């Protein structure tokens, strides 16, 4: 195996890490914002807690989508490394 394969594997692993940096930031901020607003809403209207909880979880799961995309990309990159080495 030449050095190109090693370089490809190294950069694929690096790329997987970078993908997860970006994919970790956005959803974390989005989910935290949704949770904060949810807590605010429960504080204002404690009797509507069930409905707020459902809406918040739904919004968080949709916000999570981009993070999941980058997770899939990272896993695909790691799969490439497994194939090369």
């Amino acid at each position: 195996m030449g050095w190109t394969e090693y370089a490809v594997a190294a950069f694929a692993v690096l790329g997987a890490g970078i993908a997860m940096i970006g994919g970790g930031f956005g959803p974390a901020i989005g989910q935290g914002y949704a949770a904060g607003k949810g807590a605010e809403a429960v504080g204002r209207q404690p009797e509507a807690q069930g409905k707020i909880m459902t809406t918040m979880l739904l919004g968080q799961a949709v916000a999570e989508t981009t993070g999941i995309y980058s997770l899939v990309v990272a896993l695909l990159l790691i799969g490439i490394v497994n194939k090369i080495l």
Partner: protein
Amino acid sequence: MGSLDEVLEGAKTVFTIFGVDITESVVNTWIVMAVLVILALVFSRNLKLYPDKRQNIVEIIVDGLTGLVTSTMGAKNRNFTPFIGTVFLLIAFSNILGIFGLRSPTADFSVTLAYGIVTFFCIHFFALKAKGWSYIKGFGQPFIFLLPINIIGEVAKPFSLGMRLYGNLLGGSVIMAMISGAIALFVPAVASIYFDLFSGFLQSFIFIMLTMVFITIAKDDED
């Protein structure tokens, strides 16, 4: 759930018929289907006006789903409940199959993309039925130049639905494989409650919520 390498490798081929590979995902979906059919037969046998324990459980589920569909899609779309409920139960049971040590069928992009495509055809079939020609004209709104972007947006929907479900399930099983590889006692059981049960139900709930919202917007939106 097997080791990390097994999870990342994808679904294994169980056997081949006429050159078509029947993978683990297909076989596990058959298991889910068999369980659902048996449950349906057991729970729908001799229903009574004054329900017993067994019938109460089903009535709670059916009532909950009907209420969810009615509150999300409006009272006139109440008859979507059987379809939405079927999709919910199928995906939920597929997701929690990981608890029993089997590979979840939904941790395979082909399966989740197929569910997404079912939603895609539902959206456009019911929208065409409800609005007719004006629905197709709606893609050229507000300018005709936006037609390609609108079409790409529509085609992206099944991919995003499928990718969301697949990524969550695959991520969950990767983390579960890592945890059970690192710690053998007690911790995997607790993690399994979150990653298999809670996450599985949440993801199937999100899938049907988005399906309902997409169908309602395409069908009933006045513009």
